[in-house]
């Protein structure tokens, strides 16, 4: 904006060998990146990776120990705050305000970098403020006190303030952190629009999936270093995320948006690794079982699933976890071959988990196969009658399955499976105690009270 000749795609921000520390602690260590004009770059990484520190160094709040940040070829550290704030505008994370300024006054403060101490309010100032109001749709609040706005509205006002600065570069520190999902999406859509209008945006974003969906490029920071930088699909790989976050993540395509989709797994075992806690076969479909597939796989069971239709959410989940899954064609029923395959897995399993699945003629054979299992855990969230599309025959199969199964609610699945695999539960209701005991024994990471006292 300051330099109309600078076309999209040319380098706007150059970060070279940047070291930033607080006293003895090094926060950023040799960060190197070039951000092109007209891009929306998401800054992702675990807590403490240095995302906010990087933003604060780009806007000149922090002075680097070594290296440099240049915007439009000018070194930020060498500029006055005023000159720097004409190049970089920052939308702060903490949007709680303890003052009674009206919205217009706050947005007009965005003109401070362009005004001299004794200079008056010029036409250009009014135009910039009006444009900022218009682009963020905040003019309707202009005369209200900032403190009366909701979090999402306040966010837009602070964005308007940043736009009034008319800087080519916008920095946003966790713009979605305190917002509900609707406002998160609206905020990022708004930033996208601003980028389309010629701004360059760098945003620290906590939510990897939102970042993947909205950003042109992601910069993954880990331990103060750039772990990866590029298009979302190239950055959000299971290996990179595992290294950066020290956590288990599964990367797939989001079925609706088509962008990269990351699912974090609850425990510290890598997907597809060795499994030694026992075999579990899961009967599901339509997304009823995906969660259990993740949880059980992460907990260290050898998990199989099926039969599922190709393309089914649960089938996709099983695929992404590299599980053993029996599939049939889309919309086809479970045929004889598939039924044999399922029965084999049921026989081999220490426990069969039947999710809260809807039952039609197509997948009824799954239930029949499950009924032969040694131990059955049955998830019942909705009454069977609501999800029975077959009729009395299915009900008979289900009832016989239910009579031998441990019936649980969704949150109790892991403990019930643990109990079933260790063989320590009866099919009657007094199995609760046994299940609890078995779980405690299995999960040796839970500190017992006696340990704590010592």
């Amino acid at each position: 904006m300051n330099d109309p000749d600078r076309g999209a795609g040319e380098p706007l921000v150059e970060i070279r060998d940047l070291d930033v520390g607080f006293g003895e602690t090094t926060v950023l260590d040799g960060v190197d990146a070039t951000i092109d004009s007209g891009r929306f770059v998401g800054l992702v990484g675990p807590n403490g990776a240095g995302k906010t520190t990087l933003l604060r160094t780009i806007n000149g709040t922090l002075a680097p120990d070594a290296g440099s940040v240049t915007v439009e070829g000018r070194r930020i550290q060498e500029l006055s705050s005023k000159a720097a704030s004409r190049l970089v505008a920052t939308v702060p994370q903490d949007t709680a305000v303890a003052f009674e300024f009206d919205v217009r006054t706050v947005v007009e403060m965005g003109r401070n970098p362009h005004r001299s101490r004794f200079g008056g309010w010029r036409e250009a100032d009014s135009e910039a403020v009006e444009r900022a109001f218009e682009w963020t749709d905040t003019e309707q609040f202009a005369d209200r006190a900032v403190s009366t706005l909701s979090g999402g509205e306040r966010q837009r006002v602070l964005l308007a303030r940043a736009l009034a600065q008319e800087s080519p570069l916008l920095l946003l520190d966790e713009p979605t952190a305190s917002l509900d999902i609707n406002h998160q999406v609206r905020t990022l859509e708004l930033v996208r629009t601003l980028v389309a209008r010629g701004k360059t945006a760098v945003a620290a974003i906590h939510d990897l999936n939102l970042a993947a969906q909205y950003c042109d490029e992601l910069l993954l920071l880990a331990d103060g270093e750039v772990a990866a930088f590029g298009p979302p699909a190239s950055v959000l790989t299971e290996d990179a995320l595992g290294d950066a976050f020290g956590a288990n993540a599964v990367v797939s395509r989001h079925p609706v948006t088509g962008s990269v989709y990351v699912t974090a797994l609850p425990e510290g075992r890598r997907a597809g690794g060795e499994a030694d806690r026992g075999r579990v076969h899961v009967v599901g479909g339509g997304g009823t079982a995906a969660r259990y597939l993740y949880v059980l796989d992460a907990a260290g069971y050898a998990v199989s699933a099926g039969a599922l239709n190709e393309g089914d959410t649960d089938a996709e989940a099983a695929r992404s976890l590299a599980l053993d899954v029996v599939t049939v064609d889309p919309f086809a029923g479970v045929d004889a071959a598939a039924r044999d395959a399922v029965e084999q897995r049921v026989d081999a399993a220490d426990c069969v988990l039947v999710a809260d699945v809807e039952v039609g003629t197509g997948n009824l054979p799954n239930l029949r196969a499950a009924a032969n299992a040694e131990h059955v855990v049955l998830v019942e969230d909705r009454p069977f009658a609501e999800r029975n599309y077959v009729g009395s025959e299915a009900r008979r199969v289900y009832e016989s399955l239910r009579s031998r199964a441990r019936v649980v609610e969704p949150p109790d699945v892991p403990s019930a499976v643990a109990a079933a695999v260790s063989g320590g539960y009866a099919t009657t209701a007094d199995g609760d105690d046994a299940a609890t005991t078995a779980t405690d024994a299995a999960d040796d990471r839970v500190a017992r009270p006696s340990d704590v006292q010592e």
Partner: protein
Amino acid sequence: MTIRSRTVAWSGALSALLAVAVVASAGMGSVSIPPATVAKALLSADPLPFAFDVGRTNRIIVVNVRMPRIALAALVGFALATAGTVMQGFFRNPMADPSIVGVSSGAAVGAVATIVLPFAFPFGLELQGAAFVSAVVTAFAVYLIATEDGRTPTATLLLAGVAVQTFLGAVISLLLLHSGMSIRRVVYWLMGHLGGTTWAEVRVIALVLPPLFLLLLAYARDLNVLLLGEEDAHALGIEVERTKRLLLAASSVVTAAAVAVTGVIGFVGLIVPHGMRLLVGPDHRILLPTSALAGASFLVATDTLARSGSAEIPVGIVTATLGAPFFLYLLRSREVTGL
């Protein structure tokens, strides 16, 4: 209405109020003088071109006896309210007052030491000079204590101010123990007073105040931006540390110039800016001039009360007894959500 026209309107109204307060105050006392006569006497005073005949006695009472004191009250009220407004904005805390960084305690130590100690200060410093110097030195010391690596976090500054004030309070108590016959004079000074003012005392503060006030007014917009927080202020092009230094120095000198002459007059710098903020909002472009003018009127009015009884009482007692309930009324009658 733009901020400029609101500022002009409010300032005009408060200037008129101040004029009324001054004329009314000058008419009150052991000899009652009608307002028209007061106005004529004032307009015929030395630098002014008019020459109304109001009689020699009236002219001496108004111009030479009452006016120095009223002018000092107005200037000190103006100064304390200005400094209070700046400090409340600076600390983003509505409970901050002009002496929060120890200016008043410092002035008190200087003044009390001059009264109590049996030797004279070097350089021929009189009581007011000593009070002024020790006030400024105290503020500077607090600033140095709170500064590290060129940064002065306001929270550290606040705590350093509190600690230094406590320490100086102990010094003053110690001096009081040894004050002997002069304890009456010490207590009188500490309570804040405007009695026995001469034009010479008015002249000093009248010279110091206007340029510093204009300087602070020129930084009103910066003060607004600082209210958003230092990090935001930096991102909006404010040189945060330099601006803070300047605001702190200017308001400390303004406060020191006031308390050195009159002693510690409490509450003016606290409640006047607070009350005006409730009336005109937090924008310092309007808050600073209106608070200053309201502070001037407030101190003129309270000092008139202080001297209108059968025995004169220190004005500091009046400002506190009137100010505190008014402050509580403001707190209760309007929703106070923040600055």
